[in-house]
């Protein structure tokens, strides 16, 4: 079918699929619409096109109402962490009310980021800064220890971390300010001597910490208060579990140097 042609390939100057779509979409002026409607009323092919247009409209409407899969956990965790990094509103700050048309605004200067990688790095920095502030101040989020993550499958498929291995030098982190390191670890895959997801999961299993590769939100070699280690972020429901293990950790020789969870949102309500 090409523009101006009927569905069966013949040409009838009185209508085309495009013209019927204009009629269907309320684009034509009343006189043109009336004439086209008359011409189409006695033509089964025109009726078929109008039926198809109705059906398309119905499908599109249905698309917006269908059940949706949940946001993937690693994106949800990033979102939670970014929001947790924002300082709470202090209240009473006047903000101009928008009119109905202003609700769809032009691009905001604050969002004028061109390079998405830069934006992601900036966001990760925000996450680290915010988490540090919030852990330190015990404000919007709370740091708790030894929170048990929901048990998952033990498959060894790839996790959500998409970045290539990153062999940047170990970063120095402090036990008293773990949150500040999160932004530097998120999305990294620097396993050091643990080599890969499997090595990390085995090491953690040796200390009875159940984790799956899909929960790993970032791994990086660190120096924890001067002690070499590997930090892993395990993304769970409404929390990020931060674990540091020795570089030579194995299932049979497992040790945990640090284990903290950062709560990034409210728990699900119980019914």
């Amino acid at each position, binding site marked *: 079918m090409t523009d101006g042609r009927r569905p069966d390939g013949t040409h009838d100057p009185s209508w085309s699929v495009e013209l019927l779509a*204009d009629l269907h979409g309320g684009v034509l002026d009343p006189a043109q619409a009336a004439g086209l409607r008359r011409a189409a009323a006695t033509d089964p092919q025109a009726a078929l096109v109008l039926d198809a247009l*109705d*059906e398309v409209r119905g499908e*599109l409407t249905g*698309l917006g109402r269908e059940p949706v*899969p949940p946001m993937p956990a690693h994106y949800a965790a990033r*979102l939670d962490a970014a929001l947790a990094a924002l300082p709470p509103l202090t209240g009473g700050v006047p903000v101009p009310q928008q009119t109905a048309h202003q609700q769809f605004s032009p691009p905001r200067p604050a969002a004028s980021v061109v390079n998405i990688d830069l934006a992601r790095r900036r966001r990760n920095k925000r996450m680290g800064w915010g988490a540090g502030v919030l852990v330190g101040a015990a*404000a*919007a989020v709370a740091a708790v220890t030894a929170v048990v993550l929901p048990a998952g499958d033990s498959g060894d498929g790839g996790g959500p971390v998409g970045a290539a291995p990153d062999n940047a030098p170990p970063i120095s982190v402090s036990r008293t300010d773990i949150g500040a390191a999160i932004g530097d670890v998120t999305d990294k895959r620097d396993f050091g001597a643990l080599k890969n997801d499997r090595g990390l999961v085995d090491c953690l299993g040796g200390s009875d910490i159940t984790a799956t590769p899909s929960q790993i939100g970032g791994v990086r070699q660190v120096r924890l208060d001067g002690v070499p280690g590997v930090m892993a972020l395990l993304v769970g429901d*409404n929390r990020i579990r931060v674990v540091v293990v020795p570089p030579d950790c194995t299932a049979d020789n497992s040790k945990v140097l640090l284990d903290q969870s950062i709560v990034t949102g409210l728990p699900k309500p119980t019914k």
Partner: protein
Amino acid sequence: MTAAAASDAELIAAHAAGDPRAFAEVVRRHRDRLWAVALRTMRDPEEASDALQDAFISAFRAAGSFRAESQVTTWLHRIVVNACLDRMRRRQARPTVPLPETGPGEPVARGDAMADRDTRLVVRKALQDLPEEQRLPILMVDVEGYSVAETAAALGIAEGTVKSRCARGRAKLAKSLIQLRNPDAIANVPADATHTRQQRVRPQREGR
């Protein structure tokens, strides 16, 4: 306030008043639905994730502008669409990565007849293939339910342009559907099949 029991509007008000926990509950309630909106619009999960984060940060900061006479869901929805459009304007020349036909962007399939499922898949595929200038108005008007005027304001184009772009886009989707039903000629479609379709879905025929 018990966060789980509070209304959305109460939570937004509590957040605007400085409650550090209220906004997280709003996010928890609406995140998945808005994720679907962002994913449909951006077509790429990473881009959708960033757009949704932009949107929630914007809503977090703008909570004081929310007025209780409107729905929180509607307010958030607009902010998400705005964030997506902002990102799309900025990326412009960057090619998008279409979603696979099944996967994270594909809404959960239900036990419909195979023909209905084929119809759905063909319409979705054809929608993904539309040029942005037609896909976005169709997404906003037909899928998300915005009026032509709201869509025109959001996209910065005339209302008549919204209507004509929607019509041209729908024409392409209709052609895909017709070709699915009868790849050779419409004359081969049995009359009773045509009749069935006429009875099945018939929303308002002429414009909004």
